[in-house]
C-alpha cells in the first residue's frame, strides 16, 4: 500500500519562513531512515500559497485565482509518498517525525489498481476491452 503523508500549512510556512538548520538536520535524519528502510518514494516541501494559483471549474467556465489563500490550516505545506504494509505502520513511523510546534500531518491511503477492479463503470470497462482487442 502507498500513502500520502500531507503536512498542513501554518503561519510560518505561509509566511515563507524556512525551517531552522536544526530542524533540517533532524528532518534529514528522519528521511534517511525512511530511505534506509526502503519505504520512502518521494517527499517535497511546498512554497507558500502566496506563490500558488487555484483553478476553479464551473459549468465550462474556469476561474483562475491567485494566492495567497486564507484558510491556512486547510492548506498543504509539504508531502511524503511512502509505501507500507498497513496504516498502523505509517502512523508508527510518522509519530517519530521531528515536529513539535503544533504541526499537523494527515495520512491518506493512495488508491491502488486493485481498488478499482470491481468498481469500474461498465462503459469504461467496455472501452478498455475495445482498446485491448484492437
Amino acid at each position, binding site marked *: *500500500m502507498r500513502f500520502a503523508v500531507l503536512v498542513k500549512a501554518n503561519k510560518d510556512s505561509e509566511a515563507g519562513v524556512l525551517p531552522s538548520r536544526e530542524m533540517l538536520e533532524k528532518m534529514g535524519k528522519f528521511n534517511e*531512515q525512511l*530511505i*534506509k*528502510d*526502503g*519505504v520512502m*518514494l*518521494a517527499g517535497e516541501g511546498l512554497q507558500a500559497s502566496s506563490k500558488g494559483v487555484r483553478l476553479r471549474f464551473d459549468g465550462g467556465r474556469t476561474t483562475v485565482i491567485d494566492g495567497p489563500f486564507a484558510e491556512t490550516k486547510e492548506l498543504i505545506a509539504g508531502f511524503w*509518498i511512502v*509505501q507500507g*504494509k*498497513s*496504516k*498502523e*505502520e505509517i*502512523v*508508527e*513511523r510518522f*509519530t517519530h517525525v521531528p515536529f513539535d510546534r503544533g504541526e499537523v500531518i494527515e495520512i491518506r491511503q493512495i488508491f*491502488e*489498481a*486493485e481498488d*478499482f*477492479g470491481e468498481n*469500474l463503470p461498465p462503459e469504461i*470497462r467496455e472501452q*478498455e*476491452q475495445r*482498446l*485491448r*482487442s*484492437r
Partner: protein
Amino acid sequence: MTDDPHATIAAIWRIESPKLIARLSRMVRDVGRAEDLAQDAFVAALAQWPDEGIPRNPGAWLMTTAKRRAIDQIRRDETLQRKSEQFAYDLASNGVQTDIGATYDDIGDDMLRLMFLACHPVVSKDAHVALTLKLVGGLTTAEIARAFLVSEPTIAQRIVRAKRTLAEARIPFDVPAGVERMARLSSILETIYLIFNEGYAATSGDDVLRPELVEDALRLGRMLAALMPNESDVHGLVALMEIQASRMRARVGPSGEPILLLDQDRSKWNRLLIQRGLAALAQAETLAVTSGPYALQAAIAACHARATTPEKTDWIRIAALYDALAQLSPSPVVELNRAVAIGMAYGPQAGLDLVDELLDEPTLQTYHLLPSVRADLLSKLGRAAEARVEFERAASLARNTRDRALLLERASRLAASR
C-alpha cells in the same frame, strides 16, 4: 497512537524486528537465537505496553529488553562461561542504558550482514526467500505462506530448518570480501528478484499479480541500495523492479486478465516509479564500466518507459541491448526475447527465423511463451492457421489460468478473422 494497541505493536514489530534481529545476531552469533530473543522482547512488550502505554522510542525499549535477556541467557549458559564474560564486558562498555536515543546508529552493517546470511549458499533458494522476507522484511510466517500459496507449517518448517543449517555450519555473521562477495551478492539479488517475480508474474494460481510481494521486493531492493550505494548491480536491480512495477496498474484488465505490454494504456504507468527507476538506472550505469544483467534489463524496460506510444519504441536499441544481454548471460529465454525485439526492429520474418532456431531447445519445451511468440510472429506474417495452432499449444502449456485464457482468446480471434 491508533485505537488498537495490538495493531500498533504489530506495526512496530514490522519496523523494528529486522534491526533487532540484525543487532542481536551480531551479539549472539546465531540468527535463530537472535530471532527468539527479539520475539521474547516483543512478547514482553505485548504484556506491558497495552496497560502502560507505548514508550516514546519503542525500538530502543525492545533492543534494551532483548539485550538484557541475551546477557541473562549467556550468563546462564555454563558452556559459554568464558564468552559470556567477554560479551558482558562488551555490553557494559557499549552501555545498555545509554542505547536509548541512539539505538540504531551504525545498524546498517548488521542489516547487510543479515541479508548476506539469509541468502547463504548452505541453504536452499526457497529458504533464501523465506528467510529474507521474515528476517529482513519483517513479514510474519503467515504472510509469507499466504503470498506463496503454501501452508504456514511448510514455511515455518523451511525457516526452522534453514536456521538450524546456518547454526550447524557455523556461518560467520559478516559481509564476505573479494570474489566470494560478488557471488554472494548475486545470490541476494536473485532472491529479491525471485520475490518480485512471484508477485509480478505469478507462476501459479489464479492471480496475475500479487502486489504485496512486488512491494516487499522493491522495499528490500531499496534497502540494499541504501546499504551498498556503490554497487552498480544493486541499483540495476532496483531500476529494473521500479520500472516494471510502474506498469502494475496497466498490466491487468478490469476482470483480472493480463494485458500485454504493447496493448497497455500508458497513461496508467506510474510516472513516479518510472522516474525512480530511470534515476537508479543512471546510478547503475555511472558506477560500472559495463552494465550487469539487471541494468541491461532495466535499460530495456527504460526504452519502453520512455516511449509515449508503442510506435515510438526504440526496437533497434532494445535488440542491441538484448544482444549484450545474450552475451553476458546467455539463456534460451533471453534469446526468445531477443527474437521478439529483432522481429519488431527488422520485421516478423527476421524474428521468426531466430525463434525457429530455438524450437529444439530442451529447456523451452514446456515454456508457453515460445509457441506464444511464434504464434504472434506467424500471425503478423499472415499465416493465421499456423498461428492459431501455436496459440492453442501455448495455452495448453500456460500454468497461470489468466494467461491461458488470454492465449485461447487470441487463438479464437484468429479463427474468427479467417
